[in-house]
């Protein structure tokens, strides 16, 4: 077990370095650059643009830039944003809270509702409830998020005037009630799709399990149905869910991007999109390394939990 852990951690570190190399190369080779945003303005000339690119060190060979970036990162210096001059780690830190608040709320809602709906649907397969849940989930998955978000704003903010149309809080207020009111719409929009995903996976996983021999055996032996479902079926059905959870971890950062845009939620998704649009290389690289670490941890965690839950899988 500890040998497995050590090897996986080693592999992960090598992966991180690879990811950083590939990401750095692609980012810098992509057309455009951080100077573009100024080029359509009126008071900066080509001379100014060239001079600033030179001052930022953008004209040096790519391997040199990479090596310097890498060496500094090892020392804990992730560079400074080209946009606001802040240290990259501070920039990430100042956006992380908003995303976590939104994502955790939505994911928690989605897991609870999704698992309940999925389990009930599998048990009462092809009942009216199951059909409605299936149709509902499919439609939820098929609606483009930004469209649904805009419709939600028009209904709940513009027409009914119940909830604010965006932002994380009212400037000058920020009480818990104010925060909650701002959280409802985006969390609801985000949870809609997530719930659909969780209920679909849970339902199919549960269906796989209830048809397994050991469940049939238990049933034949006269074990009460409720106990079969809770003790045997649910536990085994939840197994693939762990993989799903591991896979969902990275979407924690990027998954809310559309919702964050529609509801002007100042989170990681927006930050990433803005940084990409402005070619803010240090911030993009920082987010990439941050999310890559998260993905690798998630994957490792999923494997470990999977092994703990299913003794037939040996980690060797």
């Amino acid at each position: 077990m500890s040998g497995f852990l050590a090897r996986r951690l080693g592999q992960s570190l090598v992966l991180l370095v690879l990811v950083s190399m590939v990401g750095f190369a692609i980012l810098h080779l992509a057309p455009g650059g951080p100077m573009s945003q100024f080029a359509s303005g009126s008071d900066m000339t080509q001379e100014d643009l060239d001079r600033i690119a030179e001052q930022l060190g953008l004209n040096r060979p790519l391997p040199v830039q990479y090596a310097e970036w890498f060496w500094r990162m090892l020392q804990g210096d992730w560079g400074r944003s080209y946009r606001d001059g802040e240290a990259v780690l501070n920039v990430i830190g100042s956006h992380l809270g908003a995303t976590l608040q939104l994502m955790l709320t939505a994911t928690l809602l989605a897991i609870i509702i999704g698992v309940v709906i999925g389990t009930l649907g599998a048990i009462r397969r092809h009942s009216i409830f199951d059909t409605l849940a299936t149709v509902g989930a499919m439609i939820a998955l098929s609606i483009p998020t930004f469209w649904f978000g805009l419709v939600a704003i028009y209904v709940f903010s513009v027409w009914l005037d119940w909830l604010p149309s965006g932002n994380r809080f009212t400037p000058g207020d920020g009480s818990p009630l104010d925060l909650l009111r701002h959280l409802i719409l985006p969390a609801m929009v985000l949870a809609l799709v997530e719930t659909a995903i969780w209920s679909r996976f849970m339902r199919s996983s549960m269906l796989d399990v209830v048809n397994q021999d050991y469940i049939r055996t238990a049933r034949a032996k006269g074990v009460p149905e409720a106990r079969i479902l809770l003790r045997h079926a649910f536990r085994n059905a939840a197994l693939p869910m762990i993989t799903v959870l591991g896979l969902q971890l990275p979407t924690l950062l990027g998954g809310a991007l559309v919702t964050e845009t529609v509801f002007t939620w100042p989170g990681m998704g927006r930050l990433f999109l803005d940084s990409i649009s402005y070619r803010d290389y240090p911030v993009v690289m920082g987010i990439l390394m941050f999310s890559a670490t998260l993905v690798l941890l998630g994957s490792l965690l999923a494997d470990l939990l999977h092994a703990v839950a299913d003794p037939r899988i040996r980690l060797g």
Partner: protein
Amino acid sequence: MVDFRIDRRAVLGLGAAAALAPCTGQAQPRPPERPRGQVIVGLSQEPTVFNPLMPGIEVDQGVWWNLFSPLWYTDPEGNLVPDLAREVPTLDNGGISTDGLTWTVKLRQGATWHDGTPFTAEDVKFTLELINNPSFRARSRIGHQLVRDIRVTAPDEITWRMEAAYAPYLSILSLTFMVPRHLLSGVDPNTATFNSAPVGTGPFRWGARQPGDNITLTASPAYHGNGPFLERVVFKYIPDLTVLYTQFRTGQVDHTSIQGISPPFVREARTLRGRVIHVNPSASIEHIAPNLEFGPLADKAVRQALYMAVNKRALIDAIYYGLPAPTESFLPRQSWAFNADLPAHKHDPAAANALLDQAGWRRGAGGVREKNGVKLEFTNSTTTGNPVREQAQQLLMQDWRGIGATMRVQNMPAAVIWGEFWQQSRFQSVMVGVNFTLGADPDVTPRFHSSAIGAKGGRGQNNYQFVNAEVDGLLVQGATQFNQAQRRATYQRIQALVREELAILPLFQSAAVEGVKEGLNGYRPNQNTSSNCWNIREWFWTA
């Protein structure tokens, strides 16, 4: 209304109205004695640069106007108004020597930085020197690089010599904000704490910033000018124009600035209760930028034919809801140098066809014209995510198909299109809105002088690759004239030449549609300042 803040103000308002009711009647609202209330300004781009000498875009400049002061500024009518200076130097008052080479500026006394330090001529000297400091990432050195021998002759007087006479420098200084010497000397100006906690001489002082969300400024009681009358200004970043409009509509934003309200929303916006919609002519000229070195577009006859084939009226009325005004010049109509006598555009596809026939462009396979093996085909690019411009492109595509010219859309994200593609003239044609003026100055040397072509190693932004000896000469002449009547003649001739050669295909002078909540007074659009947040110091809520 669910907004707590509004409720509170309504209650306050009731009290005030009751007190004033007997005597005021319908009189003009008066600003309060002490700063009161707050304004939330919605911006579709995020202000991130707070050192006013570093590279920033319009939204950054909107924040700078409230934190900092220039020596003088340009008012909406185009006049220079002293701010940190006591008077604007001219030939008449002796502030500028007759050869244009020696400048002397007398400064206001009693202005202080937000931290209480007095503002002096040393700060002006430091600012000008910092811009020319080779290790500092200064935004632009146009004009500033000509400054030599800066001398502080008194705490409130400064003088310098210009390497060459340069008339636009007055306008450039009207957009140059002074920075404090005591906070920026002796530290690396690129990474100084000042850059994220700026200290200025402006009407508002730095409050707090939540990255990706908002910036809060608070009233500076020591401000040397009129105002401020608001306790707080919040600049709120709302990245999507539809969402920005919705938040203005639902009242979460008091003012939509810069990108403002997209044309398709304007008709509806005008019907909103409690909202005032302003349509302001902006200094930005929307045009088709041809690459004059690219195949068919190098032929003047082709450009003339393309221009005649454009149904400008339909474009403006249908796509832009009749808001902007058609134009023939690169200068805004309000500029003192504007040439109103340029030949007017006429929509005439028949004449366009005849012109092309005459110039030897024959219709070939599929109705597309060609000449000497060159097809009358080109791409047109603009920034993606701008549905209104995309509609305009498709309209032009149809207009031009009618005269045997094929235009294909090749749009790109901003970071790509305005990169080397634009700077090094790799495009075939671009649809773009450009503010050609420097402040209020009509000098367009960086745009039309033959030495300003980036693709040919030049130093400006003449990305059209326009080369014209007469224009070159006039540009040099105009930059050294200090008599406005003489300068006007020079720039009117330049406008005539650019129109004659069709170095750009001018479509219209853009209209910026901005919304203001009813009861908010003092909003005064100013196309010379690149942001209508320039005078928030004068804004106040009707009591």
